[in-house]
């Protein structure tokens, strides 16, 4: 990393996406890339994942149109033209409020437990932070860690913590795009997508 001397404030560390690094960047290594408001859409796609970085992608304060749906995650190695979705492209284990959900061969990573879908009630707010470890690397199954909170679809909707781990095993090519998709319906226009990245060297 190079140093740039600014005219008024002394030394500025430029981050990889054009802005100055802030305190959080220096402490955690994560560099802010962007924040985007979630619009009413069926899929949320993130393209342009670069080699040499870990990525953290956060869905903040999101909500869904159809009650009880599940949140899925998929990856792409062709810039987002196609997302890996064969029957055994992923392994995952999701733990939500002490109810497990896992698969050793799935067409997607399911980020909430089957018995506790995401509520669409007014005021529902769910959150999911996904860390993609070295998506641009090749020759191994890519690891995906996730943690968040879900407003579940119980008779009385309640917040529940959720966390899990998954991997793509449909191939070992570099990942350059990823996607959030629901088991039915669409995301509503609520919340934001934040993207951070961390240089690996």
């Amino acid at each position, binding site marked *: 990393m190079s140093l740039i001397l600014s005219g008024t404030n002394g030394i500025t560390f430029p981050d990889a996406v054009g802005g100055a690094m802030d305190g959080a960047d220096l402490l955690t290594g994560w560099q802010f890339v962007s924040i*985007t408001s*979630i619009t009413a859409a069926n899929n949320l*796609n993130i393209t342009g994942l670069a080699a040499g970085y870990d990525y953290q992608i956060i869905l903040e304060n999101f909500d869904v149109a159809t009650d009880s749906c599940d949140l899925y995650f998929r990856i792409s190695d062709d810039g987002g033209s196609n997302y890996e979705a064969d029957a055994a492209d992923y392994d995952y284990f999701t733990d939500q409020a002490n109810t497990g959900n896992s698969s050793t061969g799935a067409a997607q990573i399911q980020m909430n437990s089957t018995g506790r879908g995401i509520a669409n009630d007014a005021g529902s707010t769910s959150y999911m932070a996904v860390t993609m470890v070295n998506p641009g690397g090749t020759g191994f199954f890519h690891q995906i860690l996730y943690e968040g909170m879900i407003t579940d679809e119980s008779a009385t909707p309640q917040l529940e913590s959720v966390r899990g781990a998954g991997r793509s095993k449909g191939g070992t090519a570099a990942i350059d795009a990823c996607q959030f998709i629901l088991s*039915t319906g669409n995301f509503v226009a609520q919340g934001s997508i934040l*993207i951070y990245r961390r240089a690996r060297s």
Partner: protein
Amino acid sequence: MTKLAINAATGESEVLAFSEADKAANDKIEAAWPALRLEKDALKFQEERKTAYGTIGDQLDMQYHDLVDSTTTWKDHIAKVKSDNAKP
């Protein structure tokens, strides 16, 4: 159908119409939903009964007091949970 596409290199975003590949992938997921919904309802019913029954400790306490006081608190509680959370 639409997708919100965000470029992680530039931070730019746009709402795009589905490609044929997007539509095929989503149609496959939507087709699986009715069966999945039934599975979820069955699991939800089990989860809600389990929560409503309460802890084993609380149930043993009810049974102890029922024996000592000749009441039917535990039996009534279980019957109410079953009726309030009917099988789908």
